[in-house]
């Protein structure tokens, strides 16, 4: 991007870099918010059909202009700030949330074109995701409202306890592809005519499911939407926000979901790869990869909407229990099994016995099927064993008493 500016306009380096990054940023902001608008429309139509009704179909063709109508409505609404609220914190909360969300778009590879190729892409994504929680806490504390305070506290508790499984779930993929840069991870999945996606390996599939569940919590989707649980604490941390600031919160929320769908697609479902992308090559191939990329992302979002239409919300303590007692053990076991997968399929000098038993490690185009078979068997056995053991543990655990007895209440436990 920078070189093209230099040659075509003969601009000096600094001007080219400014122009290139300026173009990228505007592309991301415009793409992100348009994506957010499309997602809100897409979600409301999908949920409507699930509930035997039609959803927005009045504003514009098939209701496509509905999000724009909503945007105008929220912009024109009066923007109030509670009386004794901490004004600066109250004002900055949506800004921090939106900033964190937009930053995550920096490393998302749209099909083959990618804004910036950080060598530590995945780590950057999760690190910036953490900032998102800060915005929630600021909103909760800054609006001087009991419901908002509760919502903020719940939000922090949920985000902190779900970031660990989310990060750990990606480690097996980083282990298998050897790098953390998104670009290389996407390229590594272009074998077998574009279908060598990580999700088709048992370790990858397991990691995909765990990552998706953990990122449901990050994006505050049902069954993990307790920070903004409207039936209990009115609107959670967003209670005291109206007009423009509420719209920014909404924008941040849906852009996080969009970012999560894009990241999951590029890491697990092979980003822009698909049958026919390498054969076409050049501009046409890039365009086709972009289409594949969007189809996969929307399919993932459809699953999010399906879950939202069916499943009730978890309570705060159940949510914590689920993260620490269910997701974390499975994720750790998955890392173990991914290490075994890499060792079985690739080692030859490091462990002579593997080569004696299974033969030399195969290359990309001539894989050694014995090694693959053994690796699959070992990893599936470990993962499923852990799953059944953890589920047994959880099933028994749910019988213990739910209710704080009067003595506990008196003690104020």
């Amino acid at each position, binding site marked *: 991007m920078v070189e093209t500016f230099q040659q075509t306009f003969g601009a000096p380096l600094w001007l080219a870099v400014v122009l290139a990054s300026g173009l990228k940023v505007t592309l991301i902001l415009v793409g992100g918010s348009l994506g957010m608008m499309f997602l809100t429309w897409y979600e409301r139509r999908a949920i409507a059909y699930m509930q*035997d*009704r039609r959803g927005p179909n009045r504003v514009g063709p098939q209701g496509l202009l509905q999000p724009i109508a909503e945007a105008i409505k929220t912009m024109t609404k009066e923007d109030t700030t509670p009386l004794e609220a901490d004004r600066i914190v109250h004002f900055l909360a949506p800004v921090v949330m939106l900033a964190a969300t937009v930053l995550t778009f920096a490393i998302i590879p749209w099909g083959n074109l990618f804004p910036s190729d950080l060598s530590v892409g995945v780590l950057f994504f999760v690190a910036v995701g953490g900032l998102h929680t800060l915005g929630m806490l600021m909103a909760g504390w800054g609006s001087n409202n009991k419901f908002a305070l509760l919502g903020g506290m719940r939000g922090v508790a949920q985000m902190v306890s779900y970031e660990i499984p989310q990060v750990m779930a990606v480690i097996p993929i980083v282990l298998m592809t050897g790098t953390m840069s998104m670009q290389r991870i996407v390229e590594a999945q272009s074998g077998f005519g574009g279908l060598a996606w990580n999700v088709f390996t048992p370790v990858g599939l397991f990691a995909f499911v765990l990552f998706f569940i953990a990122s449901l919590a990050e994006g505050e989707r049902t069954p993990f*939407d307790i920070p903004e649980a409207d039936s*209990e604490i009115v609107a959670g941390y967003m209670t005291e926000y109206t007009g423009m600031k509420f719209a920014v919160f909404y924008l941040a929320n849906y852009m996080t979901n969009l970012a999560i769908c894009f990241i999951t697609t590029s890491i697990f479902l092979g980003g822009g790869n698909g049958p026919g992308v390498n054969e076409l090559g050049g501009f046409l191939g890039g365009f086709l990869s972009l289409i594949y990329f969007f189809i996969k992302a929307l399919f993932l979002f459809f699953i999010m909407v399906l879950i939202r239409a069916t499943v009730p919300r*978890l309570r*705060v303590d159940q949510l914590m229990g689920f993260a620490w007692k269910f997701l974390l053990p499975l994720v750790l076991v998955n890392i173990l099994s991914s290490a075994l997968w890499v060792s079985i399929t690739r080692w030859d000098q490091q462990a002579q016995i593997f080569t004696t038993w299974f033969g030399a490690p195969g290359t990309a185009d001539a894989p050694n099927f014995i090694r693959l078979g053994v690796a699959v068997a070992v990893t599936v056995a470990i993962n499923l064993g852990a799953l059944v053991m953890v589920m047994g543990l959880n099933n028994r655990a749910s019988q213990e008493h739910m209710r704080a007895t009067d003595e506990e*209440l008196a003690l104020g436990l």
Partner: protein
Amino acid sequence: MLKTEELRINIGPQHPSTHGVFRMLVTVDGETLVDLKPVFGYLHRNHEQLGEVNSYLQNMPFTDRLDYFNSMINNHAYARSVEMLAGIEVPERAQYIRVIMDELSRILNHATALGFMLGDMGAWQTALLWGLREREKILDLFEYVSGARMMCNYARFGGVARDIDDYFITETRKLMDGLPHYFDDFEGLLTNSEILLARARNIGVLPKDLALSYSVTGPVLRASGVPYDIRRAEPYAVYDRFDFDIPVGTVGDVYDRFLVRIAEMRQAYRILEQAFQQLPEASGGHINPKVKQQSLKPPIGEAYARVESPKGELGFYLVSDGTGNAYRYKVRAPSFINLTALADMCKGYKLADAMVILGSIDIVMGEVDR
């Protein structure tokens, strides 16, 4: 030990999940609920004072506004108590029509009540909208026969305002063909969902003896294990001619109430089937023609007639002084008395559970505040 402070929160009267203008003053320690004080009166319309100023017939449309989900059942209960007071005899066909309307109203009430409870749990209104779809079909039938969807004003002293004709019967038959699919969909959707089990099992437990001493009635009492259903304990209208079972819970928690209400919808379906089979033989027209409706002057005396409404025992206590107006008109509202048990059920659970427990009792503020 870190000294923590209890937080007093006002939930209501304007809150997304209090089912109307109902306020709970909640003291919360962290997320655990320490104390809950219900506050009423926001929808008080001195209904009983109106009962004493209006004539008996003029009071009938006001009973629609008590439990505005089941105006048919309110009318039926009020008509029964005036008939008991004035000694009016109701023809058989009218009793069958009243039973048909009651059971249709029971199905629509349970469908929406469960939907709202699941909405409180966070299950984004899918179950509620399926329930509302069935409710719309039933309301169209009520509109066809009584003239209005929710404010039916359909019962008269000695029968019902209009007879049902074969168009109504064929349409209800069609509706009943669709109901089993709806029941199966509803049951399949959430009954075994792990998250619902986590949110509903062992929550808001009301043991059997406590339920009796709280004078709780209806599905909440039966979920606690007491098989007390007025249609079986003190049969009225023609309920003694139908075979239907009484679903009863074992633990008395939110999950049992959920299951009891679904089972009761299926039993209501069974009653409707039998009622339509026996309807042709029922004789006597839809109303007792000898009753002067608007200038009815029952003899001096008192009467208490009660009906099994989907929320519990709905009774009307009337004292007549021989004039055209009731001397004393009291409504025994099931939601009002079921609410006494709310504070005891919610103590010790989390704030989120309090919403679900309130939803599981299924209250309507029109009936609570009268």
